[in-house]
């Protein structure tokens, strides 16, 4: 398993490099920007487990992300637990929502499933916007802890935490992709009835994928309250998250773990640059145009394009 060795060595090297960067004197701004890009690595990877591997398009990613963020904010108000507990709590809450939503909607295919997930996000946003305990539409304040795990300031600690989450979710996605489970999901994507007739317990596998996908999105959202300090429904249920969650794996290539990573780094990076140099509103326009271009000219994403050129 030479490829596996290189993969894990690379993961560790990136982790060490990230830690060294966070401990160095680099401008704080870069960590704010890198946090967002890494967060999208987690979200895109999470989306891809259900959307890319099993072929079920989720339009409600922002809902799962927000469940993670708001669970963390609620835990903060209740007991102010350590960040790790907030991340775990956010992951579990979003995973449970993923399981429940999956149970209700995974029997319908294609566009109906997509609409159901979109509706779920709208329902969740409406609940949160009308819930006084978390501040309703005004939002709620979350103050960062003073200690920063040995880093100079808390944003750097958050950056490093998100780096760990990003690497963790990519490792998880890769393990799944190469397992019997991943092959079963691919069979569902290709032809669900043929998969079922070949002995694949399709509903169980889809529920697992929906739960894990939702949980990882919740994990990505959990540190967000600390990142923004003021959490409100508009930013937690942002359209940008729902759109990017789909666009990044599609542009990178949805059938393997590399696709969402490439998509998130390229698109997320480009958005961060565009925010500074052009305007933050134009971001989604760029994403939209890129997505249209890829769907038409390279439906298998950059990974597919690369494979085609190599042949």
């Amino acid at each position, binding site marked *: 398993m030479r490829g596996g060795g290189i993969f894990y060595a690379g993961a560790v090297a990136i982790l060490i490099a990230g830690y060294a960067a966070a401990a160095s004197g680099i401008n704080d701004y870069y960590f704010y920007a890198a946090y967002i890009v890494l967060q999208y690595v987690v979200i895109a990877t999470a989306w891809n487990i259900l959307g890319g591997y099993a072929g079920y398009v989720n339009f409600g990613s922002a809902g799962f992300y927000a469940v993670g963020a708001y669970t963390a904010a609620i835990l903060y108000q209740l007991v102010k637990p350590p960040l790790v507990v907030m991340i775990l709590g956010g992951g579990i809450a979003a995973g449970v929502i993923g399981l429940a939503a999956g149970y209700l909607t995974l029997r319908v295919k294609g566009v109906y499933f997509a609409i159901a997930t979109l509706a779920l996000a709208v329902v969740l946003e409406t609940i949160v916007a009308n819930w006084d305990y978390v501040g309703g539409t005004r939002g709620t304040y979350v103050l960062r802890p003073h200690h920063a795990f040995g880093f100079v300031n808390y944003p750097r600690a958050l950056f490093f935490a998100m780096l760990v989450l990003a690497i963790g979710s990519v490792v998880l996605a890769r393990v799944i992709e190469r397992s*019997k489970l991943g*092959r*079963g999901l*691919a*069979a569902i*994507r*290709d*032809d669900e*009835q*043929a*998969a*079922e*007739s*070949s*002995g*694949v*317990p*399709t*509903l169980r596998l889809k529920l697992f994928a929906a739960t894990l996908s939702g949980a990882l999105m919740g994990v990505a959202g959990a540190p967000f309250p600390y990142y923004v300090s003021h959490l409100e429904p508009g930013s937690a249920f942002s359209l940008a998250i729902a759109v990017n969650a789909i666009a990044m794996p599609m542009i990178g290539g949805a*059938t393997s773990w590399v696709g969402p990573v490439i998509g998130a780094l390229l698109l997320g990076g480009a958005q961060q640059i565009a925010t500074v140099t052009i305007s933050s509103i134009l971001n989604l326009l760029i994403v939209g145009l890129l997505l249209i271009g890829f769907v038409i000219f390279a439906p298998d994403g950059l990974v597919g394009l690369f494979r085609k050129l190599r042949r």
Partner: protein
Amino acid sequence: MSEPLLRIENLTKRFGGFIALDGVSLHVAEGERLGVIGPNGAGKSTLTNCITGLLRPEGGSVHFAGSDVTALPAHARARLGLARSFQLPRPFHSMTLAENLAIPRDYAARHDPPDPRELLTRLGLGAKADALPRSLTQIELRKLELARALAAQPRLLICDEAMAGLSHSEVDDMLGVLLVLNDSGIAILMIEHIMRAVMRFSQRIVVLDAGRKIAEGAPADILRDKEVERAYLGA
């Protein structure tokens, strides 16, 4: 008489007001070759889907290998040894041929699972084990359907019009393959339009028309049956 491998009783399936299957009963013995024929719309594909579990009947029961599987989902029936091929080939198009066979091998085969490459070679697809299904010809796709069904180590194989659209010599080719499989102990339920093929292949034939069983017997008797003639040619 001992319990047959497959026994369905009074199977009824409705789609809204349309009755696709109306109290159909039949059985397949261990290692037997049963043919099911009937004009278009007779309920043959619905029967297949009710036996394999992709459709739930409104009434009746399906017993397989000694247990009542009426309430079992399709994947659980596949694990018991009930495999099928689809009328229109439905390969896993993103996977190579060998990977296609690995799905039932991993998910349905019980013990000592067959080697995908060896199976492909047995069906004459050995050279294409690493190719994608889209590079296959029509008969190769049909054989891939069979190979994938076999990778599940079935005790009963349901061939849903596996020969439709094939040429004369290709039909003979497929029949040869199926007879070899049957020789190895796999019971085969052949659902087919091509009379020549069914008549030659089957030990016993069941005729469906408009969702009901109108005849059952040896191929020669079926050919002489008045009701069968009427169903096919019109009265």
